């Protein structure tokens, strides 16, 4: 009846030390520890080929000492976490929020979808690119329309720039 903790089996020593690094930055209270969940999930996601499995979220919650349901709320809320489904080698997030939208983001999304042959939230058959589901403001409105590819910002996009950037992805 005691809760079995999956943390030790799922999280490697290196991951645990990276989470500890973040834990040290916040107050050692339940709320403070809970603040670690986003960087912790990022660390685990990066170590797992870009996506999270349920056991990872559970392990992180158990390790930090927070409700598993809350960790799942976080993992499902943010578009930068991919839960349950493996992703491609590269992640492309095209912003569709107001500034980008006014500057033609919708057209660019459609163009990228046609070019890659997949819809938002899908991965190309060769496992090269995942077009991340509907993306909201990524805080680069001055360079709208913009996108993030594997964590790197690309601003003032045009169809040609998209060709250039996506074609360069291996």
């Amino acid at each position, binding site marked *: 009846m005691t809760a079995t903790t999956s943390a030790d089996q799922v999280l490697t020593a290196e991951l645990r030390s990276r989470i500890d690094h973040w834990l040290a930055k916040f107050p050692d209270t339940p709320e403070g520890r809970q603040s670690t969940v986003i960087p912790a999930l990022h660390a685990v996601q990066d170590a797992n080929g870009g996506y999270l499995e*349920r056991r990872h979220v*559970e392990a992180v919650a158990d390790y930090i000492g927070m409700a598993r349901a809350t960790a799942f709320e976080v993992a499902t809320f943010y578009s930068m976490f991919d839960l349950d489904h493996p992703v491609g080698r590269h992640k492309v997030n095209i912003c569709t929020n107001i500034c980008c939208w006014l500057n033609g983001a919708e057209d660019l999304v459609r163009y990228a979808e046609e070019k890659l042959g997949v819809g938002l939230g899908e991965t190309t058959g060769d496992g090269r690119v995942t077009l991340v589901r509907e993306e909201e403001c990524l805080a680069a409105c001055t360079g709208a329309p913009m996108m993030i590819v594997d964590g790197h910002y690309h601003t003032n996009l045009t169809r040609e720039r998209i060709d250039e950037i996506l074609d360069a992805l291996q």
Partner: protein
Amino acid sequence: MSEQETVTIEVDGRAVEAVKGEMVIAATDRAGIHIPRFCYHKHLPIAANCRMCLVDVEKAPKPMPACATAVADGMKITTDSQRAIAAQRGVMEFLLINHPLDCPICDQGGECELQDLALGFGRGVSRFTEGKRSVEDEDLGPLVATEMTRCIHCTRCVRFLDTVAGKKELGGMFRGERTEIKTYVGEGIRSELSGNVIDLCPVGALTNKPFRFRARSWEMLSFPAVSPHDGVGSNMELHTLRDRIMRVVPRENEAINQTWLADRDRYGIEGLYSEDRLERPMIKEGGQWREVPWEIALRRAAESLRGVASHFGPEALGALLAPTATLEELYLAGQLVRGLGSGNVDHRLREGDTSDQAEAPPFPYMGQRIEELADKDAVLLVGAYTRHEQPMINHRLRQATNSGAAVMTLNPRRFEWNFEPVLEHAVAPGRMVAELAAVACALAKGGKGKGADLPDGVEALAAKSETAQRIAERLKVAERPAVLAGNMAAGHPEAATLRALGTLVAELAGGPFGVLAEAANTAGGWLAGAVPHRLAGGAEAPLSGLSAREMVERGLRGYLLLNVEPEADLWNPAAARQALSNADSVVAITVYAGDALKESADVLLPMGGFGETAGTFVNSEGRWQSFRGVTSPLGEARPGWKILRALGTVLELEGFELDNAEEVYRIVAAACEGVAPGSRYPFHKGAASAGSASGGTELAGAVPIYSGDPLVRRSQPLQHAAIAGQAEAVAAAETAGRIGATDGGMVRLEAEGGAVELPLRIDEAIPADTIWVPAALRERVDLGPPFGRLTVTAV
């Protein structure tokens, strides 16, 4: 409210008194001014996410949510101005965008907050032409039905499970329009309070699963009732249709269950109309059961009882009475047996040690009011898993821990709590006395200045224990401590010593000692004279008889059973089965005719079940709560008190000329006048301690949450719940290793009563050299009592 600072606000031109700092909606609710709302609930944290309660506040630039706007002196609020109404209508339109129009097939129809408010604030025709959202349902288990497309994301269920039930089992997954309330992992809800999310859900997203499509809310009649399960006496309403009970909902009582109900109280009713319900009197002739008219059955029952008394002497006759029977039934049953000349009357069916009965207080009293528990700052639980034993008591302890209280336990194992106990002291059952004595010694040594000296003999019992020392230290610094003994303590073979030491520890710590009653009328049974040594009101019985344990272990020639199932309700089920099959005559007044009962009884008299009988329960606080019968007893069944009255009349006993149940109530109430509750169990030198010096393996067990009485055992939804008891042997890895058993493998357990084979599960919550086997389950009857010595072998 009188001691708090108050301010005056003006609502719709009316002056309203409010407590400084409280939210507008709390003040208007108290003043009877209605503000529409979905997410607000007075016992839940504020979320302010539905926006239905928007009101107009003077000088505020926009409408404000009444649930999240604190009152201020002189604040002027309008709930029905054009701006307020426009805001509420706007919110309603958004809420209805994605809500399906399936009210005709929705169980919530007719009692739906969304439906009601849509009538007041909704538009007749929707302007929304886009596609509506639909959501896949998750199976939350056998108790709560889901239809999540109807969800409006008020998050009351999420907040309830998190802050009241203590474990956030549901969450708001995804975001925006795609938000879904779910567990995500699909493992269902394990909370013992899960049914409350049904009442909280303002729409038909979460509904009562067993009740589904059974009736419409407007067809049913509602009657007040009191829960027949644990010693809390939760208040509830029974909803009936065509003379059948359809469902149970909570009835608010801040002093007892607030607005909540435990699942056991809500779904126990599902066992009422089970297939083995006895509808007609039956007698056994030549080994065959035959239905007979009441007169014949009563005459046969009277002859049996009289026959035993005259052939073998009245002391060969005994009555075992269910602690869930009413005060009136328990009183009459006691009178009946005493009228036949026997003193063998008892309702303490699962108690292992009643040697302190002569000096015991008038009834097992929890030493304080239920409400007061929430204010404690340190509580020691002895032999108690309140979360499953008395969920609403546990709820108050959880509230106490929220304010920083230290809850500590001394139990034969660790448990899954819904709060963090600061300390769980899990020891083999044979060591509990020694550990509790050690707590007493440590307290006495520290000297809190309460002037209570340690009685002779306590030190001799005490173990050398650092953990006990720590418990004592925590109790010592507490300002409002309490010590509570639970059901496991009552079932312990040294229960009397535990109670005496508990009293001592509480006295030394300067707080009350309390005994938590196991059943709805455990306390009432004492007051009604359903104990062998006392009459109604606590007067000494002229002839003192045997306790339930003695009646079973010694074996009598005749038994009268009042709604008792020998294999599940008694402390030593193996001995009970033996005693009843050896008896010459067994008369059972019973709601159900289970197989075990049919095997051993000679006469079965059908008794009205829960909701079918008027009566009274006395809870752990000593609170008397009377209720009426709300449906007719099934078939030819009759209320228990009427059966006992008829039997008394046929036996030509005195005092059975009674017109109604109230008359019985008045007799008991008159006898109890001036009875003061108490919870002091004096300590005497020479109190026994079995100890565990011999180093053998010990058996420990408690009654699982849904196995306590005949009604709840027949509730199929509860039996299928994740937390229902399972027949298994549980041990720590080291203990299992010593036996040579593996996780999931079968083990053979041999105790005094006999032997059983059960699957073994490894769990470090069990102390060393102890095997945990849940009690009251059919599969473990042969093991006998819940505690004892045991030999284990791997199969």
